[in-house]
């Protein structure tokens, strides 16, 4: 990587790892018995059969550093090696080199969506994706992160959106929604209960989402608002693995929420955005939020429980559902989407492995912003495809714009005629008209 070469260096990378190595990491590296079970959990291995995609192997450089610097045995080995080298008058070979990190860059980025499935399966209990997230910090600091992700991060910092999308574009969409629904889309409303965030991917590919929440929130009398200064929920800093960038982006959300004095922030139908702001955000800025964070699905399910969503009619075709990794396995939202499906689906069938053991669509964790990873992204999708073929649905439902795009593109690639819909939209389609609801 050439740009900003003075910013990135091997030493900075190793220092980032030194900061990241904690007790769980040490316990995981100490415990791995090279059984290879994690490979069977990873869509990138399963669909390519290439052992280099074994999850724990993706961490080998970081493991070397841990062994040499954080174990008595490793320190001793280094001491002896250095002695021998000194005796022979030769220079000691560095443990980790730029060439090595260059070789590992595609392993840590192109072939890992940080889906966390390996972490559920390792028999000694290693949380491998926890370590991959950490390993990426060192990759960024040493200048070994993919161009595509770097560009997205720079755009996110400079324009507020990883896709360079501006408020003007969103404003046009808001006007459309207002015309189509006859409802107002509240902007910068002080003291609203919920600040709604969106993702650029969603604004571009799935404008139906904004229309759907506008209708649902009107139906359920929810007080909400968008913020002109901050509408983007995703965090490119977390995908690439840079705490500094992550903190800058999270701070924008916090500032907007504090300025508008909202009590809650809603992450859109985007799994990554949700884990970014829900779990990583407070740690990036090193303080707890003065507001709560929910994924839109959690909010909708709460409205359902409170009896504030009244629906009529059901979809009668055979539907199945893709759980976004970030929402289900990595955030514990599993039942909510199923309760909502019950409301509007007459013929719903779950994929065999779902919820905390679902298979990744293959596009998350920055893979979809990394052009170089295209072939692997499609390969990993084949696992999802196989799962879908098992239950033969007529349509798929999901609640993440990245997953949805990947499912649509993947299914099209394999000539499978299975449309993909967002759950929020599906709920919006079945709302009882407000006047009718009030009469009953």
């Amino acid at each position: 990587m050439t740009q900003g070469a003075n910013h990135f260096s091997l030493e900075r990378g190793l220092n980032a790892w030194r900061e990241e190595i904690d007790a769980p990491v040490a316990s995981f590296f100490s415990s791995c018995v090279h059984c290879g079970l994690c490979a069977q959990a990873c869509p990138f291995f399963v669909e390519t059969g290439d052992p280099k995609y074994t999850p724990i192997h993706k961490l080998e450089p970081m493991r070397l550093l841990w062994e040499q610097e954080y174990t008595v045995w490793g320190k001793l080995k280094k001491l002896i090696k250095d002695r021998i080298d000194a005796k022979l008058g030769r220079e000691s070979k560095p443990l980790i080199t730029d060439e090595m990190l260059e070789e590992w860059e595609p392993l840590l980025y192109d072939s890992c969506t940080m889906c966390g499935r390996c972490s559920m399966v390792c028999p000694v209990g290693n949380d491998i994706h926890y370590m991959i997230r950490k390993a990426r910090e060192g990759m960024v600091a040493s200048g070994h992160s993919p161009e595509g992700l770097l560009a997205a991060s720079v755009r996110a910092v400079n324009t507020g959106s990883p896709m360079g999308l501006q408020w003007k574009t969103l404003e046009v969409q808001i006007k459309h929604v207002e015309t189509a629904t006859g409802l107002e889309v509240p902007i910068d409303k002080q003291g609203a209960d919920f600040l709604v965030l969106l993702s650029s991917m969603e604004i571009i590919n799935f404008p139906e989402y904004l229309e759907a929440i506008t209708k649902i929130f009107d139906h359920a009398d929810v007080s909400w608002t968008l913020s002109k200064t901050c509408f983007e929920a995703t965090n490119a800093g977390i995908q690439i693995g840079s705490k500094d960038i992550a903190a800058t982006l999270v701070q924008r959300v916090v500032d907007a929420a504090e300025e508008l004095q909202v009590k809650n922030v809603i992450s859109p139908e985007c799994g990554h955005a949700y884990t970014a702001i829900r779990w990583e955000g407070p740690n990036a800025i090193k303080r707890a939020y003065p507001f709560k964070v929910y994924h839109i699905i959690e909010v909708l399910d709460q409205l359902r429980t409170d009896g504030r969503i009244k629906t009529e009619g059901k979809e009668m075709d055979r539907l199945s559902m893709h759980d976004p990794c970030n929402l289900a396995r990595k955030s514990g939202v599993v039942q909510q989407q199923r309760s909502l499906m019950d409301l509007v689906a007459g013929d719903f069938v779950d994929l065999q492995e779902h919820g905390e053991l679902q298979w990744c669509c293959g596009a998350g964790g920055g893979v979809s912003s990394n052009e170089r990873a295209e072939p692997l992204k499609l390969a990993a999708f084949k696992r999802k495809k196989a799962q879908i073929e098992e239950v033969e649905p007529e349509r798929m439902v999901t609640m993440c714009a990245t997953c949805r795009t990947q499912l649509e593109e993947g299914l099209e690639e394999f000539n499978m005629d299975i449309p993909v819909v967002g759950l929020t939209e599906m709920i919006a389609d079945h709302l009882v008209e407000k006047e009718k609801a009030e009469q009953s």
Partner: protein
Amino acid sequence: MTSMDFLLFIKGPMFSIAVAIFALGILVRLFEILALGRAHNYAAARGNEIIPGLKTIYRRFNPDPGTFKRSTFDVLVGTLWHVGFVVVLLLFIPHIELIQSTIGIGWPGLPNPVVDAVTAITLLGLVAVLIHRFRQPVKRFLSTREDYLIWLVTFLPVLTGYLAYHRLINPYPLALGLHILSAEVFLIVLPFTKLSHIFTAFVARYYNGAIFGRKGIQS
């Protein structure tokens, strides 16, 4: 040195050295892990850490159906020989007597022929696991010298025990000496290699369960 001298050395000074290295080594190992600590987590928790952490310790003995299907051999044979190893280690009457004389607590054992059969199964299991390691592409790719070393130091105490019991090495004091020596090598090597998973896997499983548990997922 007669075989009796050898046995006396192995049972005496060597045994103390091995136990000391093992005990100190494993304490250092656990200390160097736990001392690293964890950064404060500012994100509002969805769930508890401790209970899911403890549950995961138990749950990883029992893999999910998909993993079982995809790695049936690993799970079955791995479990089989591990259980065999522990049964032989802790339920063979002479072992219990040794433990009782060292730390003062004992328990009932299994009849010798049962232990003998379990030993044979454990040996076969270990051999099968080694062949699998050579042949399964992912395992072969991941394996380092250390993986073969820990296999060997695990295999030898079981093998020498079996040979000594069946009087296949003579004289008997030599056979017993070799068996105890291999167990001592096992103890000495344990803290410095992946064999430490015997202890650290519990720590790893706990952390895994705790990290997921905080987010409201049982891992």
